[in-house]
């Protein structure tokens, strides 16, 4: 008990020494620094991981986007702008004339709301079998995306009377 009292009596002098005090100060400062440093490190790590995920997501998106644009760039025919539909029609009619086919009729089909991305037409013409086939095989206007919806050919007076419905796709 006496020894314990003696220890307790002398204990304050143990910490009061200048160098011990300095050790305590340095340790406290370092503890605080490492605590806040650790917190900041965890925060930075989480942020970095989120950024990394975002980068990966962006890179994946760009890869996908590049693949899609590559598909488009490699496509032989592509949808045209709405303003270019008339030009496409003109090209097709020029082709008809150039092939010496006789235009019987041409009309634009009424478009529905669903068909905002395309315009449908019906074209009737007559001509020899060979020319008709040649025209049909080369039925396109530059790189405009066109699909033939229906085709009817009838023989009449040694000629082929053709009636076709086609759709021009608009982007």
């Amino acid at each position: 008990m006496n020894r314990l009292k003696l220890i307790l009596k002398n204990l304050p002098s143990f910490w009061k020494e200048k160098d011990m005090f300095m050790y305590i100060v340095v340790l406290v400062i370092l503890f605080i620094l490492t605590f806040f440093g650790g917190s900041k490190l965890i925060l930075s790590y989480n942020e970095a991981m989120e950024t990394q995920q975002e980068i990966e997501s962006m890179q994946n998106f760009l890869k996908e986007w590049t693949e899609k644009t590559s598909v488009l760039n490699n496509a032989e025919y592509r949808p045209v702008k709405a303003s270019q539909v008339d030009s496409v029609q003109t090209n097709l009619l020029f082709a008809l004339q150039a092939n010496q086919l006789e235009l019987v009729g041409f009309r634009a089909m009424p478009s529905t709301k669903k068909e905002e991305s395309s315009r449908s037409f019906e074209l009737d013409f007559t001509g020899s079998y060979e020319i008709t086939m040649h025209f049909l095989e080369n039925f396109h206007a530059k790189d405009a995306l066109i699909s033939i919806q229906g085709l009817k050919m009838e023989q009449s007076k040694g000629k082929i009377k053709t009636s076709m419905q086609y759709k021009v796709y608009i982007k």
Partner: protein
Amino acid sequence: MISLYLQPDKTQIVKARFKKDHTLYVTHATEIQPYYNDLNSKISKSINSGEDLFQDESDGMAPLFQELKRIVPTQYEEVYIVLPDTLFRSINCGDFLSEEEYMKFVQSKTGKKDDEVYYSFPIISSPGGQKKKTFYAINREIVNALTDAAQMENISLTSIEPASMAYLRSAGKWEKEYNLLQIFDDDASIVSYSPIAGIFSFNVPDLAKKNLEKIEDVNQVFKATFSLNDFTAEQIFTSINTNVPFTVLVDEPDSLLSLEVFQDRLAEPERLPACVDIDLAENHQQEWFIPVGTLLQNIEIENEFMPSYLNIYAANVLPEQTQLNAKFRQWKHMTKKYSRLLIVLLAIVAVVETAGIIYFSTIAISPQLQSDYDAAQKNTKDVDEEIKLLAAAKKEHEYPVEAFKELLSNRPDACGFSSISVGNNGTSTQDSAEKWVHLTAVASDPLVLQNFASTLSADEMFSHVTMNKMDTDPSGFKIADLTLGKGKIK
């Protein structure tokens, strides 16, 4: 922990540490030059002349600690010193009736005032109602010389003990009676121990080596001394066994121990207790009992034969405040040592954290990637839409030219087409797929038309080939209406 046994002819040094299983592991044991004589002669001179002790460092015991520091690292070690019993002013035991009476007895034995002597009371024996207490008394000058030098050399001096107590602790047989005979060149002492009373000692300078050399009948001198010791023991230890053997602690013991007097009274050699791990042959262990024994003063060694009436304590003569100062110094050293380690560790952690923070902060979206992504985001809807249109166009296209060419390739020579219709204006139902082509074929022979239909059925491009009707026109030609479903487009 380090122990030093200051003998007149040498100084023994032992360095050891306690393992987790409480084994004392001795890592270092060596002998260096003696420092005892310096201490003894200068103190005697000082006491006689009344001069100040050790006026400068060269006069003090500092060289002892300086040499110690050269041999083993001392910075974080507690140092225990053992002094020969001859250096103690008085070692005795007496009846303890009251503190006051006992201290009068002690003072009568030391012949000194309390402020001139340091005491330790290591043994209290209370067999059968009586109580005896052993004291060791040493001149303060001796202790102060050592503590001053230790302080000067920044040594944590933890204990100063008499050799006899350190020896008995190493022997660990407190239930047994002992006669310890220590013989040096110029001095000798006998310490007698009995568990029922304690310890008494007296110096026997006649048995010093140098004095023995001058005597013809050495046996006789020993016998006379032993008789005197036995007589004294009988006075003090009322029921001591007669002819207790002597444990002789002397350098080069062979010549002495061959004397006739020791034929009957020489104790068997002893070994260190099992809790001491020391790399030393058993026949040499006794030489190191004293420096090892003092290191065991703060632990309890199990002894099933330990008398219940006997209490053993450390015989440390250092004043409590000095012990505490040494303890604090040691704690300070240890605190500083671990603080330094912790500071280095925390500094490394702080550097690693900083490096981590800097590294993680460099992970950011590059402006190029961001701009590409923004541009792609802006166009992605249009691109998706365009790709959707490409797919729709492929699905809605009726491939009339391909169908017509396939029909021509299958057409028999004797067959012609009067009309052909391909596609259903973009409708893509199951029914429309089965009625992809409507064909009116003309032939003179109905079998030709039938064969033509069969040929078309076998063509992969067509499916569900059906001849809906066959008529005959006015000129006799057969006219057949055929419906063909869509197969695999080549």
